[in-house]
């Protein structure tokens, strides 16, 4: 791994590049890195996916547990989404209780999936008021070279679409596919060198400012937004990002659908 520049030097360098519409690795402003998406990669998970975006690598795994439905929603199961960025994923990540960063990561990914309505929680009910499925989506970073948000969101929805409910193991029927009716896609933009770019690398994150995360549904409806880190942006800037997210979202959604024939 090359030695990271002193942040101030790095920031100057990134500004210079941006002024010439360039990026550290030669990409265009809204160009993503080389992307790999595989599903069914973890033998002990009921659904799984692996995403590689440049040197960023993550896994998503789906597990199922039995739960008692909440008393105010007796006919519904639940969805839980947890992101872990353990020290394996980078020099800067430390052991310990979940950091604010990893909490934000899981909650933003969770909201995008949850609010898209892609999972019908009433389909998870086994016996009303007594027994239902809890779907647990665990997001696990292996190598963090930037933009874990999009990597986690993509691996997450792909793993859910890959999941089988292990009804036989729990003696409640025959195994069946988890029904995932939509494909929410998150696209993240970070201000680097003064302008917003798509799919920031680790070094761009190190020398960048605020991030904007946009999750859109199949119909381009907005399901989740999040602004992170220090910085202020204008309405015009946001409009442009929203437009870009629509285009990129369509592209990535097709990639997910290609894996499962559209489900």
């Amino acid at each position: 791994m090359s030695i990271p520049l002193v942040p101030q030097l790095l920031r100057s360098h990134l500004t210079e590049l941006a002024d010439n519409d360039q990026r550290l690795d030669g990409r265009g402003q809204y160009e993503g890195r080389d992307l790999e998406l595989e599903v069914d990669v973890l033998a002990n998970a009921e659904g799984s996916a692996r995403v590689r975006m440049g040197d960023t690598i993550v896994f998503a795994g789906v597990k199922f547990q039995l739960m008692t439905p909440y008393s105010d929603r007796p006919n519904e199961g639940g969805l839980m989404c947890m992101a872990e960025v353990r020290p394996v994923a980078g020099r800067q990540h430390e052991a310990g209780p979940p950091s604010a960063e990893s909490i934000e990561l899981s909650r933003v990914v969770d909201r995008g999936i949850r609010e898209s309505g892609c999972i019908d929680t009433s389909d998870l009910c086994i016996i009303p008021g007594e027994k239902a499925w809890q779907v647990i989506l665990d997001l696990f970073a292996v190598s963090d070279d930037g933009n874990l948000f999009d990597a986690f969101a993509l691996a997450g929805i792909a793993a859910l679409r890959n999941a089988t409910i292990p009804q036989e193991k729990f003696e409640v029927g025959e195994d069946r596919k988890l029904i995932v009716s939509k494909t929410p896609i998150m696209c993240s933009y970070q201000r680097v060198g003064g302008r917003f770019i798509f799919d920031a690398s680790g070094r761009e994150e190190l020398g960048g400012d605020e991030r904007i995360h946009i999750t859109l549904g199949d119909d381009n409806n907005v399901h989740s937004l999040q602004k992170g880190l220090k910085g202020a942006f204008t309405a015009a800037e946001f409009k442009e990002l929203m437009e870009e997210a629509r285009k990129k979202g369509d592209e990535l959604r097709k990639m997910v659908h290609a894996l499962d024939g559209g489900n």
Partner: protein
Amino acid sequence: MGYGDVQMIDANGIRNDGRKAGDVRPISIELGVVPVADGSCRMKWGSNDVIAAIYGPMEAHPRKIQRQDRAVLDVRYNMAPFSTSDRIRPGFNRRSREISKVTAEALESVVMLELYPRSKIRVEIEIICAEAGTRCVGLTAASIALAHAGIPMTDLVISVASGKINDVVVCDLNKSEDNYGEADLPMGILPNTGELVFLQMDGNLSQEEFQEAWDYNMEAAMVIHEYCVEALKTGRYPQ
């Protein structure tokens, strides 16, 4: 997020508390409510009751949190145990951690941190009664308390949320609207430039609905900003 047959808004566009779509709930502001703090503010907004207090700038310790070129903001958003219908157990809470983080990042965007290298400014936001939109009230109250403490800022941050009920976009959801609402778009707006330093959203909004909610927030922020300015002049709003 379902609302079944519950009708939250009537045929004339009047909401269950008598407001029109673009109206905000009643707001009152009082400064100096934490006498031992360097700056403080209590903001009541609908039934929300929020206290923000500022301590600092003070020496940042332990030293490893110090920054050579600027102050660090140490922001805590917290809901008191009795602030909600069901008691909240004190202690670690993932939701509060996330709100504290994005609130801190919003405030860092306006506080002139570079004036206080190696120091720390503590921002304490306590929700003592919660209705809906506590993160907006907390962020706005914190920016007023920072001003009250005399911390230099490029602008106040006015935060407000719009959302959707019964397929109608409305501004500043109250509790029952929030319970049955289909979307929530909180924003943190700089009144002098119209820029955003805070943005979240969850739910389901078409691109058009999204724009409508955005516009409501922008308009409401200008109104609320005036209340804040008056409070900072006289110590309270309304008089």
